[in-house]
Protein backbone atom coordinates (compact mmCIF):
# COMPACT_ATOMS: atom_id res chain seq x y z
CA UNK A 1 0.00 0.00 0.00
CA UNK A 2 2.70 2.46 1.04
CA UNK A 3 4.79 1.50 -1.98
CA UNK A 4 1.92 2.35 -4.33
CA UNK A 5 1.17 5.55 -2.42
CA UNK A 6 4.76 6.78 -2.70
CA UNK A 7 5.04 5.66 -6.30
CA UNK A 8 2.11 7.91 -7.18
CA UNK A 9 3.63 10.80 -5.24
CA UNK A 10 6.98 10.33 -7.05
CA UNK A 11 5.22 10.05 -10.40
CA UNK A 12 3.42 13.33 -9.82
CA UNK A 13 6.59 15.07 -8.61
CA UNK A 14 8.62 13.83 -11.57
CA UNK A 15 6.06 14.86 -14.16
CA UNK A 16 5.43 18.29 -12.69
CA UNK A 17 9.12 18.90 -12.01
CA UNK A 18 8.30 19.63 -8.38
CA UNK A 19 9.92 18.37 -5.21
CA UNK A 20 6.71 16.60 -4.22
CA UNK A 21 5.60 15.89 -0.70
CA UNK A 22 8.43 13.51 0.24
CA UNK A 23 8.34 9.92 1.41
CA UNK A 24 5.17 9.05 3.29
CA UNK A 25 5.54 6.39 6.02
CA UNK A 26 3.43 3.22 5.70
CA UNK A 27 1.31 4.01 8.78
CA UNK A 28 0.51 7.46 7.46
CA UNK A 29 -0.55 6.03 4.07
CA UNK A 30 -3.02 3.66 5.72
CA UNK A 31 -4.30 6.37 8.05
CA UNK A 32 -4.85 8.69 5.06
CA UNK A 33 -6.73 5.99 3.17
CA UNK A 34 -8.95 5.16 6.15
CA UNK A 35 -9.72 8.74 7.10
CA UNK A 36 -10.28 10.03 3.55
CA UNK A 37 -12.51 7.20 2.36
CA UNK A 38 -14.68 6.66 5.44
CA UNK A 39 -18.09 8.33 5.44
CA UNK A 40 -19.05 9.20 8.98
CA UNK A 41 -18.11 7.00 11.93
CA UNK A 42 -20.44 4.08 11.30
CA UNK A 43 -19.22 0.75 10.03
CA UNK A 44 -21.23 1.00 6.80
CA UNK A 45 -19.30 4.17 6.00
CA UNK A 46 -16.40 1.92 4.98
CA UNK A 47 -18.28 0.14 2.21
CA UNK A 48 -15.36 0.82 -0.14
CA UNK A 49 -13.68 -2.21 1.49
CA UNK A 50 -16.60 -4.36 0.40
CA UNK A 51 -16.32 -2.83 -3.06
CA UNK A 52 -12.64 -3.87 -3.26
CA UNK A 53 -13.26 -7.42 -2.04
CA UNK A 54 -16.41 -7.96 -4.16
CA UNK A 55 -14.56 -6.76 -7.22
CA UNK A 56 -11.65 -9.09 -6.49
CA UNK A 57 -13.93 -12.13 -6.19
CA UNK A 58 -14.82 -11.95 -9.88
CA UNK A 59 -11.20 -12.18 -11.00
CA UNK A 60 -9.12 -15.31 -11.54
CA UNK A 61 -6.17 -13.99 -9.57
CA UNK A 62 -7.70 -12.83 -6.29
CA UNK A 63 -4.58 -11.22 -4.88
CA UNK A 64 -3.70 -9.01 -7.84
CA UNK A 65 -7.37 -8.08 -8.29
CA UNK A 66 -7.55 -7.09 -4.64
CA UNK A 67 -4.44 -4.97 -5.07
CA UNK A 68 -5.79 -3.44 -8.26
CA UNK A 69 -9.02 -2.37 -6.51
CA UNK A 70 -7.10 -0.89 -3.61
CA UNK A 71 -4.83 1.04 -5.97
CA UNK A 72 -7.86 2.50 -7.77
CA UNK A 73 -9.13 3.83 -4.46
CA UNK A 74 -5.66 4.93 -3.42
CA UNK A 75 -5.17 7.09 -6.49
CA UNK A 76 -7.93 9.47 -5.37
CA UNK A 77 -6.47 9.53 -1.87
CA UNK A 78 -3.02 10.44 -3.24
CA UNK A 79 -4.53 13.22 -5.32
CA UNK A 80 -6.21 14.60 -2.22
CA UNK A 81 -2.95 14.24 -0.28
CA UNK A 82 -1.07 16.21 -2.97
CA UNK A 83 -3.74 18.90 -2.91
CA UNK A 84 -3.31 19.35 0.81
CA UNK A 85 0.41 18.87 1.24
CA UNK A 86 2.06 20.36 -1.82
CA UNK A 87 -0.21 23.29 -2.51
CA UNK A 88 2.47 25.65 -3.94
CA UNK A 89 3.36 23.05 -6.58
CA UNK A 90 -0.26 22.11 -6.93
CA UNK A 91 -1.25 25.62 -7.95
CA UNK A 92 -1.86 26.28 -11.62
CA UNK A 93 -0.58 29.53 -13.11
CA UNK A 94 -3.13 31.68 -14.92
CA UNK A 95 -0.82 31.70 -17.95
CA UNK A 96 -0.46 27.95 -18.00
CA UNK A 97 -1.59 26.24 -21.17
CA UNK A 98 -4.70 24.13 -20.74
CA UNK A 99 -5.09 23.01 -24.34
CA UNK A 100 -2.93 23.43 -27.43
CA UNK A 101 0.61 24.74 -27.81
CA UNK A 102 2.29 27.91 -29.04
CA UNK A 103 0.95 31.44 -29.00
CA UNK A 104 -2.61 30.30 -29.65
CA UNK A 105 -2.70 27.88 -26.73
CA UNK A 106 -5.67 28.15 -24.42
CA UNK A 107 -4.61 29.41 -20.98
CA UNK A 108 -6.36 29.24 -17.62
CA UNK A 109 -7.03 32.97 -17.86
CA UNK A 110 -9.06 32.42 -21.04
CA UNK A 111 -11.41 30.16 -19.11
CA UNK A 112 -12.13 32.67 -16.36
CA UNK A 113 -15.36 34.54 -16.86
CA UNK A 114 -14.83 38.20 -17.76
CA UNK A 115 -16.77 40.17 -15.19
CA UNK A 116 -15.74 43.64 -16.31
CA UNK A 117 -18.53 45.93 -17.41
CA UNK A 118 -17.95 48.26 -20.34
CA UNK A 119 -20.05 50.87 -18.54
CA UNK A 120 -18.05 50.56 -15.32
CA UNK A 121 -15.11 52.70 -16.42
CA UNK A 122 -17.40 55.49 -17.59
CA UNK A 123 -19.20 55.37 -14.25
CA UNK A 124 -15.87 55.63 -12.41
CA UNK A 125 -14.83 58.67 -14.47
CA UNK A 126 -18.18 60.31 -13.85
CA UNK A 127 -17.84 59.65 -10.13
CA UNK A 128 -14.34 61.15 -9.99
CA UNK A 129 -15.48 64.33 -11.75
CA UNK A 130 -18.38 64.65 -9.34
CA UNK A 131 -16.10 64.12 -6.33
CA UNK A 132 -13.66 66.73 -7.63
CA UNK A 133 -16.46 69.30 -7.94
CA UNK A 134 -17.76 68.47 -4.46
CA UNK A 135 -14.26 68.72 -2.94
CA UNK A 136 -13.74 72.14 -4.52
CA UNK A 137 -17.06 73.30 -3.10
CA UNK A 138 -16.49 71.92 0.41
CA UNK A 139 -12.81 72.95 0.65
CA UNK A 140 -13.86 76.59 1.02
CA UNK A 141 -15.78 75.75 4.21
CA UNK A 142 -12.92 73.89 5.97
CA UNK A 143 -11.64 75.19 9.31
CA UNK A 144 -7.93 75.35 10.05
CA UNK A 145 -7.97 72.35 12.39
CA UNK A 146 -9.85 70.34 9.79
CA UNK A 147 -7.29 71.15 7.11
CA UNK A 148 -4.46 70.19 9.45
CA UNK A 149 -6.23 66.93 10.32
CA UNK A 150 -6.47 66.08 6.60
CA UNK A 151 -2.79 66.88 6.08
CA UNK A 152 -1.86 64.75 9.11
CA UNK A 153 -3.79 61.84 7.63
CA UNK A 154 -2.06 62.32 4.29
CA UNK A 155 1.35 62.41 6.01
CA UNK A 156 0.33 59.40 8.14
CA UNK A 157 1.22 61.36 11.26
CA UNK A 158 -0.67 61.03 14.55
CA UNK A 159 -2.67 64.02 15.77
CA UNK A 160 -0.44 64.28 18.82
CA UNK A 161 2.63 64.98 16.65
CA UNK A 162 4.07 68.31 17.86
CA UNK A 163 4.19 69.79 14.31
CA UNK A 164 0.52 68.94 13.78
CA UNK A 165 -0.60 70.34 17.13
CA UNK A 166 1.41 73.52 16.51
CA UNK A 167 -0.01 73.94 12.99
CA UNK A 168 -3.58 73.44 14.20
CA UNK A 169 -3.13 75.62 17.24
CA UNK A 170 -4.97 73.14 19.44
CA UNK A 171 -4.51 69.76 21.16
CA UNK A 172 -5.00 66.36 19.59
CA UNK A 173 -8.46 65.83 21.08
CA UNK A 174 -9.72 68.99 19.37
CA UNK A 175 -8.11 68.02 16.07
CA UNK A 176 -9.71 64.58 16.33
CA UNK A 177 -13.11 66.10 17.05
CA UNK A 178 -12.75 68.50 14.10
CA UNK A 179 -11.81 65.63 11.82
CA UNK A 180 -14.81 63.56 12.93
CA UNK A 181 -17.21 66.49 12.37
CA UNK A 182 -15.74 67.25 8.94
CA UNK A 183 -16.15 63.64 7.77
CA UNK A 184 -19.68 63.61 9.15
CA UNK A 185 -20.45 66.77 7.20
CA UNK A 186 -19.18 65.28 3.95
CA UNK A 187 -21.17 62.06 4.52
CA UNK A 188 -24.34 64.04 5.33
CA UNK A 189 -23.95 66.32 2.29
CA UNK A 190 -23.49 63.39 -0.10
CA UNK A 191 -26.27 61.41 1.58
CA UNK A 192 -28.65 64.32 1.21
CA UNK A 193 -27.80 65.15 -2.40
CA UNK A 194 -27.52 61.60 -3.73
CA UNK A 195 -29.98 59.69 -1.62
CA UNK A 196 -31.35 57.86 -4.67
CA UNK A 197 -27.95 56.20 -5.28
CA UNK A 198 -27.05 52.89 -3.65
CA UNK A 199 -24.90 52.75 -0.53
CA UNK A 200 -21.78 51.44 -2.34
CA UNK A 201 -21.79 54.34 -4.79
CA UNK A 202 -22.27 56.89 -2.00
CA UNK A 203 -19.45 55.30 0.00
CA UNK A 204 -17.13 55.48 -3.01
CA UNK A 205 -18.12 59.12 -3.59
CA UNK A 206 -17.35 59.99 0.05
CA UNK A 207 -13.88 58.43 -0.20
CA UNK A 208 -13.10 60.22 -3.47
CA UNK A 209 -14.35 63.55 -2.06
CA UNK A 210 -12.24 63.17 1.08
CA UNK A 211 -9.25 62.45 -1.18
CA UNK A 212 -9.99 65.65 -3.08
CA UNK A 213 -10.32 67.63 0.17
CA UNK A 214 -7.02 66.22 1.36
CA UNK A 215 -5.32 67.40 -1.86
CA UNK A 216 -6.87 70.84 -1.42
CA UNK A 217 -5.70 71.03 2.23
CA UNK A 218 -2.12 70.18 1.28
CA UNK A 219 -2.11 72.78 -1.51
CA UNK A 220 -3.61 75.36 0.82
CA UNK A 221 -0.97 74.73 3.48
CA UNK A 222 1.84 74.93 0.94
CA UNK A 223 0.52 78.15 -0.58
CA UNK A 224 -0.19 79.79 2.78
CA UNK A 225 3.38 79.27 4.04
CA UNK A 226 3.74 77.07 7.04
CA UNK A 227 6.31 76.63 9.80
CA UNK A 228 9.68 75.19 8.72
CA UNK A 229 9.00 71.82 10.36
CA UNK A 230 5.61 71.47 8.65
CA UNK A 231 7.08 72.71 5.36
CA UNK A 232 9.75 70.01 5.60
CA UNK A 233 7.08 67.36 6.21
CA UNK A 234 5.01 68.61 3.26
CA UNK A 235 8.10 68.63 1.07
CA UNK A 236 8.32 64.86 1.51
CA UNK A 237 4.97 64.43 -0.30
Amino acid at each position, binding site marked *: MAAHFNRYVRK*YSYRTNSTGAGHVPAGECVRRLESS*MAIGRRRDGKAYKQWIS*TRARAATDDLSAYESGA*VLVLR*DVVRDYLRQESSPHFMVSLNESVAGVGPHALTVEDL*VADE*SEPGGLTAERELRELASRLAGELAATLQKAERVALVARRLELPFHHHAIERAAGCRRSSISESCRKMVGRVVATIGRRYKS*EDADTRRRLVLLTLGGLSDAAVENMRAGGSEPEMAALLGAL
Partner: protein
Amino acid sequence: MKTPPSPKGSGRGVRNRDKLRAWLAEWRADQLLGEHEAAGAGVVLGLRSRPKTAKGLKEGAIVLLQPACPVAAARPRYLAVLNVDAEADEMLVAPFSRFGCPAVRGELLMRADSLPVRVLCLWNARRVCASGLPPFWKTGRLTAKEVADAIVIRNGMASGAAVPKQLEHRVGPPLQHPLDPRHDYIADERHWLNACLPQADAMQLKRDDEPSSYLLAAEGKAQYRADRKPRRGRTR
Protein backbone atom coordinates in the same frame (compact mmCIF):
# COMPACT_ATOMS: atom_id res chain seq x y z
CA MET B 1 -24.88 56.69 -11.73
CA LYS B 2 -23.51 53.13 -11.72
CA THR B 3 -21.25 51.57 -9.10
CA PRO B 4 -17.72 51.59 -10.55
CA PRO B 5 -15.69 48.36 -10.66
CA SER B 6 -12.96 47.74 -8.12
CA PRO B 7 -9.47 48.01 -9.65
CA LYS B 8 -8.57 44.57 -8.22
CA GLY B 9 -11.60 42.89 -9.77
CA SER B 10 -14.75 41.83 -7.98
CA GLY B 11 -14.55 39.48 -5.00
CA ARG B 12 -16.66 36.92 -6.81
CA GLY B 13 -14.38 37.06 -9.86
CA VAL B 14 -11.29 36.42 -7.75
CA ARG B 15 -13.01 33.56 -5.92
CA ASN B 16 -14.11 32.00 -9.21
CA ARG B 17 -10.57 32.25 -10.55
CA ASP B 18 -9.17 30.54 -7.45
CA LYS B 19 -11.82 27.82 -7.60
CA LEU B 20 -11.03 27.18 -11.25
CA ARG B 21 -7.30 26.97 -10.55
CA ALA B 22 -7.88 24.52 -7.72
CA TRP B 23 -10.09 22.34 -9.88
CA LEU B 24 -7.66 22.42 -12.81
CA ALA B 25 -4.84 21.38 -10.48
CA GLU B 26 -6.87 18.34 -9.44
CA TRP B 27 -7.78 17.58 -13.02
CA ARG B 28 -4.13 17.77 -14.06
CA ALA B 29 -3.08 15.49 -11.20
CA ASP B 30 -5.83 13.06 -12.17
CA GLN B 31 -4.51 12.97 -15.74
CA LEU B 32 -0.93 12.45 -14.52
CA LEU B 33 -1.82 9.66 -12.12
CA GLY B 34 -4.39 8.19 -14.46
CA GLU B 35 -2.50 5.20 -15.80
CA HIS B 36 -3.55 2.63 -13.28
CA GLU B 37 -3.13 -1.09 -13.02
CA ALA B 38 -6.08 -2.84 -14.61
CA ALA B 39 -4.85 -6.31 -13.72
CA GLY B 40 -7.54 -8.46 -12.25
CA ALA B 41 -10.27 -5.85 -12.66
CA GLY B 42 -13.41 -7.87 -12.35
CA VAL B 43 -17.08 -7.35 -12.98
CA VAL B 44 -19.26 -9.27 -10.60
CA LEU B 45 -21.86 -11.06 -12.67
CA GLY B 46 -23.38 -13.25 -10.01
CA LEU B 47 -23.27 -11.39 -6.72
CA ARG B 48 -22.93 -13.69 -3.74
CA SER B 49 -24.54 -11.29 -1.33
CA ARG B 50 -28.10 -10.34 -2.09
CA PRO B 51 -28.17 -6.67 -3.16
CA LYS B 52 -30.31 -4.26 -1.20
CA THR B 53 -33.47 -3.13 -2.88
CA ALA B 54 -34.08 0.52 -3.56
CA LYS B 55 -37.49 0.25 -1.87
CA GLY B 56 -36.05 0.92 1.55
CA LEU B 57 -34.04 3.96 0.51
CA LYS B 58 -34.96 7.23 2.12
CA GLU B 59 -34.24 10.83 1.24
CA GLY B 60 -30.61 11.68 1.99
CA ALA B 61 -29.26 8.13 1.68
CA ILE B 62 -25.75 7.76 0.27
CA VAL B 63 -25.11 4.55 -1.66
CA LEU B 64 -22.05 2.94 -3.19
CA LEU B 65 -22.74 1.03 -6.40
CA GLN B 66 -21.60 -2.58 -6.40
CA PRO B 67 -19.10 -3.49 -9.15
CA ALA B 68 -21.77 -5.17 -11.24
CA CYS B 69 -20.95 -3.39 -14.51
CA PRO B 70 -17.60 -2.24 -16.00
CA VAL B 71 -18.07 1.43 -15.08
CA ALA B 72 -19.01 0.59 -11.50
CA ALA B 73 -15.93 -1.67 -11.29
CA ALA B 74 -13.60 1.04 -12.66
CA ARG B 75 -13.80 3.12 -9.46
CA PRO B 76 -16.10 3.39 -6.44
CA ARG B 77 -19.23 5.28 -7.58
CA TYR B 78 -21.29 7.03 -4.92
CA LEU B 79 -24.81 8.39 -5.35
CA ALA B 80 -27.05 10.47 -3.10
CA VAL B 81 -30.81 10.07 -2.99
CA LEU B 82 -32.27 13.58 -2.92
CA ASN B 83 -35.94 12.86 -3.20
CA VAL B 84 -38.19 9.80 -3.05
CA ASP B 85 -41.58 9.75 -4.69
CA ALA B 86 -43.15 6.59 -3.27
CA GLU B 87 -46.36 6.91 -5.28
CA ALA B 88 -44.59 7.16 -8.62
CA ASP B 89 -41.96 4.66 -7.46
CA GLU B 90 -39.30 7.17 -8.49
CA MET B 91 -36.34 8.80 -6.86
CA LEU B 92 -34.06 11.72 -7.69
CA VAL B 93 -30.40 10.66 -7.43
CA ALA B 94 -27.21 12.66 -7.95
CA PRO B 95 -23.67 11.27 -8.20
CA PHE B 96 -20.68 12.54 -6.24
CA SER B 97 -17.66 13.92 -8.07
CA ARG B 98 -14.30 12.19 -7.90
CA PHE B 99 -12.71 15.61 -7.29
CA GLY B 100 -12.51 17.58 -4.08
CA CYS B 101 -13.41 20.95 -5.67
CA PRO B 102 -16.67 21.79 -7.45
CA ALA B 103 -16.11 22.12 -11.20
CA VAL B 104 -19.19 24.05 -12.33
CA ARG B 105 -22.09 26.03 -10.88
CA GLY B 106 -24.16 22.87 -10.67
CA GLU B 107 -21.75 21.18 -8.24
CA LEU B 108 -22.06 21.75 -4.53
CA LEU B 109 -19.36 21.29 -1.90
CA MET B 110 -20.91 19.12 0.83
CA ARG B 111 -18.45 18.09 3.53
CA ALA B 112 -14.73 18.56 3.64
CA ASP B 113 -13.77 15.53 5.73
CA SER B 114 -14.85 12.69 3.46
CA LEU B 115 -13.35 12.48 -0.02
CA PRO B 116 -15.96 10.28 -1.77
CA VAL B 117 -18.87 12.52 -0.77
CA ARG B 118 -17.22 15.91 -0.88
CA VAL B 119 -18.80 17.35 -4.04
CA LEU B 120 -22.29 16.56 -5.28
CA CYS B 121 -22.89 16.82 -9.06
CA LEU B 122 -26.39 18.23 -9.22
CA TRP B 123 -26.15 18.94 -12.93
CA ASN B 124 -25.92 15.16 -13.36
CA ALA B 125 -28.90 14.38 -11.12
CA ARG B 126 -31.63 12.28 -12.62
CA ARG B 127 -34.90 10.58 -11.85
CA VAL B 128 -34.87 6.80 -11.76
CA CYS B 129 -37.50 4.27 -10.92
CA ALA B 130 -36.63 2.34 -7.78
CA SER B 131 -36.21 -0.92 -9.68
CA GLY B 132 -33.81 0.77 -12.12
CA LEU B 133 -31.16 1.38 -9.50
CA PRO B 134 -28.25 -1.10 -9.84
CA PRO B 135 -27.08 -3.14 -6.79
CA PHE B 136 -25.61 -0.97 -4.05
CA TRP B 137 -24.48 -0.74 -0.45
CA LYS B 138 -25.92 1.90 1.85
CA THR B 139 -22.96 3.80 3.19
CA GLY B 140 -24.15 6.95 4.92
CA ARG B 141 -26.68 9.76 5.06
CA LEU B 142 -26.87 13.39 4.11
CA THR B 143 -28.41 15.67 6.70
CA ALA B 144 -31.75 17.36 6.00
CA LYS B 145 -29.92 20.68 5.58
CA GLU B 146 -27.52 19.17 3.03
CA VAL B 147 -30.43 17.73 1.05
CA ALA B 148 -32.28 21.07 1.18
CA ASP B 149 -29.21 22.96 -0.10
CA ALA B 150 -28.78 20.46 -2.91
CA ILE B 151 -32.42 20.78 -3.92
CA VAL B 152 -32.10 24.59 -3.99
CA ILE B 153 -29.18 24.36 -6.43
CA ARG B 154 -30.91 21.70 -8.51
CA ASN B 155 -34.15 23.72 -8.75
CA GLY B 156 -32.19 26.89 -9.49
CA MET B 157 -30.50 25.16 -12.41
CA ALA B 158 -33.81 24.02 -13.79
CA SER B 159 -35.45 27.45 -13.50
CA GLY B 160 -32.38 29.55 -14.32
CA ALA B 161 -32.45 31.29 -10.94
CA ALA B 162 -29.24 32.69 -9.45
CA VAL B 163 -27.38 30.72 -6.78
CA PRO B 164 -28.38 32.01 -3.31
CA LYS B 165 -25.71 34.16 -1.66
CA GLN B 166 -25.20 31.76 1.25
CA LEU B 167 -24.36 28.92 -1.16
CA GLU B 168 -22.25 30.97 -3.57
CA HIS B 169 -18.94 29.96 -1.96
CA ARG B 170 -19.87 26.25 -2.19
CA VAL B 171 -20.54 26.04 -5.93
CA GLY B 172 -17.99 25.94 -8.75
CA PRO B 173 -16.99 28.65 -11.22
CA PRO B 174 -19.05 29.34 -14.35
CA LEU B 175 -18.37 27.30 -17.47
CA GLN B 176 -18.12 29.51 -20.53
CA HIS B 177 -15.31 28.62 -22.90
CA PRO B 178 -16.14 25.93 -25.46
CA LEU B 179 -12.62 24.42 -25.16
CA ASP B 180 -12.66 24.25 -21.37
CA PRO B 181 -11.41 20.82 -20.13
CA ARG B 182 -14.42 20.69 -17.84
CA HIS B 183 -16.45 19.72 -20.90
CA ASP B 184 -14.39 16.49 -21.05
CA TYR B 185 -14.98 15.91 -17.36
CA ILE B 186 -18.73 16.46 -17.80
CA ALA B 187 -18.79 14.03 -20.72
CA ASP B 188 -16.94 11.41 -18.60
CA GLU B 189 -19.28 11.82 -15.67
CA ARG B 190 -22.36 11.74 -17.83
CA HIS B 191 -21.08 8.65 -19.65
CA TRP B 192 -20.62 6.51 -16.55
CA LEU B 193 -23.97 7.47 -15.08
CA ASN B 194 -25.71 6.77 -18.38
CA ALA B 195 -24.08 3.34 -18.39
CA CYS B 196 -25.19 2.60 -14.82
CA LEU B 197 -28.65 4.16 -15.05
CA PRO B 198 -29.71 3.74 -18.68
CA GLN B 199 -33.39 4.37 -17.94
CA ALA B 200 -32.87 7.62 -16.07
CA ASP B 201 -34.22 11.02 -17.02
CA ALA B 202 -31.20 13.34 -17.22
CA MET B 203 -30.88 17.11 -17.28
CA GLN B 204 -28.95 18.79 -20.09
CA LEU B 205 -26.18 21.05 -18.79
CA LYS B 206 -25.67 24.26 -20.69
CA ARG B 207 -22.70 26.58 -20.52
CA ASP B 208 -23.40 29.41 -18.10
CA ASP B 209 -23.31 32.07 -20.78
CA GLU B 210 -25.08 30.02 -23.39
CA PRO B 211 -27.76 32.03 -25.12
CA SER B 212 -30.81 30.09 -26.12
CA SER B 213 -31.60 32.01 -29.25
CA TYR B 214 -28.41 33.11 -31.00
CA LEU B 215 -25.49 31.19 -32.46
CA LEU B 216 -21.96 30.84 -31.19
CA ALA B 217 -19.23 32.21 -33.47
CA ALA B 218 -17.90 28.76 -34.36
CA GLU B 219 -21.25 27.26 -35.22
CA GLY B 220 -22.86 27.03 -38.60
CA LYS B 221 -26.20 28.58 -39.24
CA ALA B 222 -29.07 26.56 -37.90
CA GLN B 223 -31.59 25.26 -40.35
CA TYR B 224 -34.84 27.14 -40.16
CA ARG B 225 -37.29 25.23 -37.95
CA ALA B 226 -34.96 22.23 -37.96
CA ASP B 227 -36.40 21.08 -34.65
CA ARG B 228 -39.92 20.81 -36.08
CA LYS B 229 -41.20 17.30 -36.45
CA PRO B 230 -42.15 16.31 -40.00
CA ARG B 231 -45.85 15.87 -40.58
CA ARG B 232 -47.12 12.36 -40.75
CA GLY B 233 -47.52 11.08 -44.29
CA ARG B 234 -45.42 13.79 -45.92
CA THR B 235 -41.93 12.40 -45.25
CA ARG B 236 -40.07 11.03 -48.25
